[in-house]
């Protein structure tokens, strides 16, 4: 039994507190039938990962704007990366938030 802990890895895919906050916002805004804990920080948000699409991106953008005080734009060069995962998305918001 003790072997479980010896082999246990607290690995880099643990949700950090701000990621949990953003995961909660995504689940709440889109009314996904899942717990925010279930969004893996490094899985893709779009297509084959969480399965979000562009309509979802628009809804999330509006909520981000009102809660964190900055606006998403299509011309941001980092757009592909920003939405690559919950981790990338949370990092981006953290860097650009004004409130």
């Amino acid at each position, binding site marked *: 039994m003790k072997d479980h802990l010896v082999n246990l890895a607290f690995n880099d895919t643990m949700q950090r507190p701000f990621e949990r906050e953003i995961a909660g916002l995504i689940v709440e805004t889109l009314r996904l039938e899942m717990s925010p804990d279930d969004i893996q920080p490094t899985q893709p948000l779009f297509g084959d990962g969480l399965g979000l699409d562009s309509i979802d991106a628009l809804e999330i953008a509006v909520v981000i704007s009102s809660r964190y005080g900055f606006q998403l734009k*299509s011309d941001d060069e980092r757009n592909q990366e920003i939405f690559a995962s919950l981790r990338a998305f949370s990092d981006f918001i953290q860097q650009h938030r004004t409130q």
Partner: protein
Amino acid sequence: MTSRLPLVARASQDALFRTHDATITTDHFLHAVHTMAGQLPLGDYVVNLCQDRYCFVVAFAAALLAGKITLLASDRSSDGLKALAERFGDPTALVDGTGEAKPLRSCLVAPDFVKSSGRLDIPSLPVDQVAALVFTSGSTGQPVAHTKLWGALVQRSITAGQRFGFVQERPASIVGTVPPQHMYGFETTVLLPLHAPVSSWCGSSFYPADIQLALEACPEPRVLVTTPLHIRMLLQDDAKLPAVAGFISATAPLDAALASQAEQKWKTEVSEIFGATEVGSIASRRTVQSDVWTVYPDIRLTRTGPEGSPLVEAPHARTFPLGDTLDVLSETQFRLLGRSTDFIKLGGRRESIARLNQILTAVPGVVDGVFIAPDDLETRPAARLLTFVVAPDRKPDEILAALRERIDAVFLPRRVVCVDTIPRNQVGKLTRQAQLALQESAARADTNAESIAGTFSIPADHPSLPGHFPGRPIVPGVVLLEEVFALIAGRFDGRSLKALDNVKFVAPVLPGETVTVSYRVSAPDRVAFSCRHADTLLVRGTGSFGSAPS
């Protein structure tokens, strides 16, 4: 001798298209089109998959010039493109920088912005030249192709320009939030500038910030060509837009209250266009004023007989039956009635639920299956179709992946729900009551999905307790997790969780307390667990069976 109409009916220095970096005149456009026409591969058909609006229009016009028919594919799933390949002799896909066209081979569209240009003659094309094929899905079989003749397309642009009052003395700037390849965006943002005094924005226009910047970059008068979804998002975002003379909305009915809010907030006039892929735009109305639609100047409505269904007559186009969705008031006016229940609209695309169901039941391993449109599908932007299947040997994720290859992404459900049976009635139909019962039982199944792994308690003399903490013993987190993992392994044939994804220690666990561990499978290879004493939540977290990254 067939009459001809010019590719562009604008003056050489008129602005046709705009981006943040460039204003593209008729001359610039003609140069780009001639160059592209020379780069097209052999073949009678091309599939225009350009996502950039300027690339799209250059590719379309080049194909016209070269006498090729453009396939406006709205189904871009790999199955959809494969079907086009088989049906039309392997057409080449015209793609811009972001292009992904498998299994078609592709040709890159990358027009230059010509700095200095000599005047070019404007080519003209026969009115009966087939410019494009657009597709709608029937309830069975392959998509139905509809022919768009060049003459009809030009005519549409001219009458739309008349209906919305665009005049040479005050050319309007159009910013469209809609994609160029669907009929609405194709008519209003791609074709319109060629034959009406407007310019069309070709930069980004998706997020509220993009839309604001685009409108600010264009001269007045400005017109926003958009959909109810985007209007709702702009209102929610409290967007600060510059002066916009008019909003045009289409693809789904616009709620009059929403239109009124938009008119007041931005001091603008909101109109709607009514159309169908088969026949294009045919009518408009000022939403807040009336629920009566007036057809465009060259359109006539008729009936086949006293009980007959209404028909639409338009120049250069086949007479088109509109079904019982219209209440025809006169030759030129109608009201809308309820929608046919088989068709749904999502993201501006119309699809038949019967067809989706056919595709679903053809997925290997699916014994029975059904798509259900929830009641709020058209009012709540994040709402999606629900999918239930009977598929004893397959996992929900596998079926979702199979669907992703077969249907357009906008019709995918958030997840596939496996059930033991689909409660059909004696004629095989799912009544509305049965549908609601199915939805409800699936929701209940979710909340009851937790199973009990077992219980444990840590005795008062456990070696970890002295010092943790002196005088106030609390069971350390690692000891709790030990017990949780052991109990869960017991439920999974001895497989133990290899990694902890997150954990929250909500309340302290005291020695001697009986702790109940429950769990559910939250994702492939992932377990969410919780520990309770009586009803108090003590710990919750998720862990995975997969190997931890090094």
